[in-house]
C-alpha cells in the first residue's frame, strides 16, 4: 500500500548537499503497525516528512520513490499531493499542544479537518467531530469541542490530534513520537487507542519513536535506522529475540530495562566516522575513592521532615485563589554515598521538592536537615556555605550552559564565585574535572555549541562537581539524551559517585532509569510521597496501587514482572 523505495534525502548547505537519509526501503501493508526506530539525527523524522511531501525548504529528495497504491507521490503536482494529505495519509506529531492552533477551539479544528476533504456541511461535520471525540475516549466531549488547546492536558490534546487524523478514515497514519511528550500512564492509554483504531479503522500506522519499549509493545514489524541508513528490518519478535545488526543489538542492550539488574550499562563503540563498531561493557576507568568511609556514614546526609510548599492558583477567572500543595508533608532521608530516586508523573511536585532542597524556593513549613543542620529557614547569606555542598544538574544541557562562555569558564565559574584557589589552581582543577567526566583537555577552550547533547551534559556535571559537593541533585538529567548516550552518562554518574563520595537525589519520570541508578526510591503523586523504600522492594514488590499502575504502564522489552503479562 505504501512503498518507499531507495529514498534518499539531503540537506542543502553552503558546502553543497549533505546527505541525511540514504537508500531507505520499506513497505507498509494494510492494517499493519510498522515501527521506525532510531536515535536523534538518524533521519527517521525527515523520512516521514519526505513521505508526506512536507520536507522543509532546505531539504531535497535526491533519489527514490514513495509509492502509494503504485503512484509515485514525489512526482505528483502539489495540488494533487495536498488532496492525499489528511485524506489518505494523516499525521500525528510529537508535541500535541504545539500542533494545534492556539486561537481556535479544538472542535473548530476538527470540523475544519473534516470539511477539507468531505463537504458534508458544518452541522454534520460538528456531529461527526463529536462522535470522533467519543471514539478517542476523551472525557466530556462537549467541553473538549469548545475548549482551546491550552485548556486541555497534553494527553487530551494528543487525543484531539488523533481524532483529527482518523477523521477522514485515512489508510496510513504516520505517528511521529506520538507519546514522547506524555507521562507513562497517558502514553499507555494513547498507544492502546492507536492500536484499537488501527484494528477498527484498518489504517496502517507508521510509528516513529526512539523508545524500543513502545515498539516492542505496539509494532508488528520494525525498521531500525542509524545515521541516515537502514540498519535492519525485521518482525518485532525477531528483532528483540535475535537482532541482526550490531547497532540494533547495541540499542537494545544499552537501554536500562525494568527488572534487569546491571551494575553498568554497555555502551556503543563507534569509529571516528560514527559507524558502530561493537557494543562493549564500559569498564570502570576511574579509581574509586580511597579515603575511609566518613564516620557519620550511618547518619543521613539529607533528611527532609514534613516539608510543605504550596502555590496559590485560581481555578477559574472569578474564583478565589485556592491553595495548591505542590509538596505536601514530604519526609525523606538519603544516606551518604547512596542514590535516592524520586519518580512521579509531570506536575507531581518532584521538581518543586528539589528546588526547595537547594533553597531556590523557601519552603512553607517543615525541616531540611543537611548534615544535621536545618537549612529550611536560613537566609540567603546563612545559606551561602551550604551552596558549596549542594549542586544541581538540569534536564536540558542546551539551556543550562551559557553559550557565550568557554567550557573552562563554565566549569570554573562556581570556584570564582566562592573565590576558591588562585587562577592557576583553578585551571588545574578544571583540567582534572574535565578528565574525570571523560572530556579531552582540548575541550576547555571550546564553546558549548561545539559539543553533542551527551558531551554538554558531561560539562554540566563537571561544573556541578567544581566545588566538591557532597549532594548532587540530578533533575531529569538524562531525560533529554538518546539511549546510548544516556547509558554513558549513567555509567559516568555511578563512577563519579564512587570516586568523589557523592550522594545523589535523582529525579526522573523514567522508572527504568531510576531502578538502574537508585538505592532507595520514593514515588511521588500530587505532592505526596505515596511509597518509599529500597529500590528492590519498590520494583520487586510494590505495595501501593499507584506504584503498580506506574510500573505497569512502562513499556518493557520481553520481561514478565510484577504480575504483568508479557505481550
Amino acid at each position: 500500500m505504501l512503498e518507499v523505495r531507495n529514498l534518499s534525502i539531503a540537506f542543502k548547505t553552503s558546502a553543497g548537499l549533505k546527505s541525511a537519509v540514504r537508500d531507505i526501503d520499506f513497505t507498509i501493508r494494510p492494517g499493519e503497525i510498522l515501527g521506525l526506530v532510531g536515535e536523534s539525527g538518524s533521519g527517521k523524522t525527515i523520512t516521514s516528512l519526505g513521505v508526506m511531501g512536507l520536507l522543509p525548504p532546505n531539504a531535497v529528495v535526491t533519489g527514490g520513490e514513495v509509492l502509494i497504491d503504485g503512484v509515485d507521490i514525489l512526482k505528483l503536482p502539489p495540488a494533487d499531493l495536498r488532496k492525499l494529505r489528511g485524506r489518505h495519509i494523516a499525521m500525528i506529531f510529537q508535541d500535541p499542544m504545539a500542533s494545534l492552533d492556539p486561537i481556535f477551539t479544538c472542535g473548530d479544528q476538527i470540523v475544519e479537518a473534516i470539511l477539507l476533504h468531505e463537504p458534508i456541511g458544518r452541522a454534520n461535520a460538528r456531529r461527526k467531530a463529536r462522535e470522533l471525540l467519543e471514539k478517542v475516549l476523551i472525557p466530556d466531549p462537549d467541553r473538549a469541542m469548545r475548549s482551546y488547546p491550552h485548556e486541555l492536558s497534553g494527553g487530551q490534546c494528543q487525543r484531539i490530534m488523533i481524532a483529527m487524523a482518523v477523521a477522514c478514515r485515512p489508510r496510513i497514519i504516520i505517528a511521529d513520537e506520538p507519546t514522547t511528550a506524555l507521562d507513562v500512564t497517558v502514553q499507555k492509554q494513547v498507544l492502546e487507542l492507536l492500536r484499537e483504531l488501527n484494528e477498527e479503522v484498518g489504517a496502517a500506522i507508521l510509528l516513529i519513536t526512539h523508545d524500543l519499549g513502545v515498539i516492542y509493545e505496539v509494532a508488528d514489524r520494525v525498521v531500525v535506522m542509524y545515521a541516515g541508513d537502514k540498519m535492519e528490518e525485521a518482525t518485532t519478535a525477531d528483532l528483540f529475540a535475535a537482532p541482526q545488526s550490531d547497532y540494533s543489538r547495541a540499542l537494545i542492550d544499552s537501554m536500562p530495562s525494568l527488572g534487569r539488574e546491571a551494575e553498568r550499562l554497555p555502551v556503543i563503540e563507534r569509529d571516528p566516522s560514527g559507524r558502530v563498531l561493537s557494543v562493549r561493557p564500559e569498564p570502570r576507568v576511574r579509581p574509586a575513592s580511597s579515603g575511609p568511609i566518613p564516620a557519620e556514614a550511618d547518619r543521613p546526609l539529607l533528611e527532609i521532615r514534613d516539608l510543605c510548599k504550596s502555590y496559590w492558583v485560581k481555578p477559574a477567572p472569578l474564583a478565589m485563589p485556592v491553595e495548591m500543595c505542590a509538596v505536601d508533608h514530604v519526609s525523606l532521608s538519603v544516606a551518604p554515598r547512596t542514590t535516592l530516586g524520586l519518580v512521579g508523573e509531570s506536575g507531581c511536585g518532584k521538581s518543586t521538592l528539589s528546588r526547595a532542597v537547594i533553597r531556590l524556593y523557601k519552603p512553607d513549613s517543615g525541616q531540611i536537615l543537611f548534615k544535621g543542620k536545618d537549612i529550611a529557614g536560613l537566609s540567603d547569606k546563612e545559606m551561602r556555605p551550604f551552596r558549596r555542598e549542594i549542586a544541581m544538574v538540569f534536564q536540558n544541557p542546551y539551556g543550562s550552559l551559557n553559550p557565550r562562555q568557554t567550557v573552562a569558564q563554565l566549569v570554573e565559574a562556581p570556584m570564582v564565585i566562592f573565590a576558591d584557589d588562585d587562577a592557576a589552581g583553578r585551571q588545574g582543577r578544571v583540567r582534572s574535572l574535565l578528565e574525570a567526566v571523560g572530556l579531552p583537555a582540548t575541550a576547555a577552550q571550546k564553546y558549548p555549541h561545539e559539543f553533542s547533547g551527551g558531551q554538554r551534559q558531561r560539562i554540566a556535571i563537571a561544573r556541578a562537581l567544581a566545588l566538591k559537593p557532597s549532594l548532587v541533585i540530578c533533575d531529569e538529567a538524562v531525560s533529554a539524551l538518546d539511549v546510548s548516550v544516556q547509558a554513558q552518562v549513567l555509567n559516568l554518574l555511578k563512577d563519579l559517585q564512587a570516586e568523589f563520595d557523592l550522594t545523589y537525589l535523582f529525579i526522573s519520570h523514567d522508572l527504568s532509569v531510576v531502578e538502574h541508578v537508585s538505592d532507595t526510591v520514593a514515588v511521588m503523586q500530587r505532592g505526596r510521597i505515596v511509597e518509599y523504600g529500597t529500590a528492590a522492594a519498590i520494583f520487586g514488590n510494590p505495595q501501593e496501587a499507584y506504584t503498580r499502575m506506574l510500573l505497569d504502564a512502562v513499556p518493557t522489552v520481553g520481561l514478565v514482572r510484577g504480575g504483568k503479562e508479557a505481550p
Partner: protein
Amino acid sequence: MNASIAGALLLAARKLLTAFIQLLVVATLIFSVMYIMPGDPVLLLLGADSNPSPEAIASMRSQLGLDQPVLSQYFVWLWNALHLDFGKSLTNGYPVANYVMQNLPRTLELAFAAIIIAALIGVPLGIAAALKRGSMRDTVLTSIATIGISVPVYIMGTLLVLFFSLKLGLLPASGYTDISRNVLEHFRKLALPALALGFGLAASIARMTRSSVLEILGRDFVRALRAKGMSERRIIWQHVLRNAAIPIVTIIGLQLGNLMGGTVLVEAMFNWPGLSTLLVGAVSARNYPLVQGAMLAIAAAFILINLVVELLYSLLDPRIRRKRS
C-alpha cells in the same frame, strides 16, 4: 460560555481600573512638574516688567487660588480636572477645556490617519516579505523598510511637499480647513502630514509583521495544518495571520499612543493646529493651566488607546482571555 464572558468582563473591569490609576498618577506628576518648574505664573501674568505692586500680586494670587496650601490646590485641581475643568488660559482667560476640546480631535484625526496609512502599507509589505523569505523581493522590501525607518519625518515631509505640491501641484503644502466648511479641502490638507507621519511607521510595522509572520510559519501547528491537506493560501489567511496579528496590533497600538505626543514636528511643519502646536505655544508663554490641560489630554488619549489595544488582544488571543485573568 458564560464563564468566558464573565472572565472577559472582569478582565475589562480590571484594565479600566488600572487605566484610571495610571491617569491619576500622571495627573499628579503633571501637577507637581508645574510646581517644580521655575518662574512665577503670577508675575508672568501681571507682566514682570511693569513692576506690579505687592497688593496686586497678592490679590492675583488669591484669585488664582495660589495662596492655598499645595495639597488643597492639588485636590481642587484634580477635582476640577475630573469635571473637565482645567482652569482658564492665563493669556486671555478663555477656558482651557475649550482649547483642548478644539485641538485634541485634530491631533487624534492626524494620528489615526497616519496609523491607517501605515498599517495599509506596512502589513501587506511585511506579509509579502515573509512569504518569500530570503528572495530578492524580501531583500528589496526589507531594505526599503530600513530606509523608511531611518528617514526623519521632517525630511520625508519636505520631500512630500516638494513632490506633491510644488512639482505636481496636487495637494496643498500646509494649513487646515475645518471639515464643516469644506470636506474635500479638509482631507486634501490632511493628506500630506498624514503621509509624512505614516511612512516611517509603515516601515516599522512592515518589519514587525514580517518577523511575526515568519515566527508563526515556523510553528508546529502550521506543519500539522499542511499535513491535514490544507492549501497554503488558507493556512496563511486563516491561521498564520490571525496568530501573527497579536504582536502587530501591539506595535500599532503603541505607535498610535506615541503619535499623540510625536506629532509636534509634523504639526509645526504643516501648520496643523493640533494639540502639540497648542502645547508648544503654551510652554513658551508659560501658560501653566493650558500646559497642564494639554499634557493631561495627551496622557489620557495615550492611556485610552493602550486600554483599547489590550482589550483587543483578548479578542484575538483566547489564552489571555482566560488564563491571565
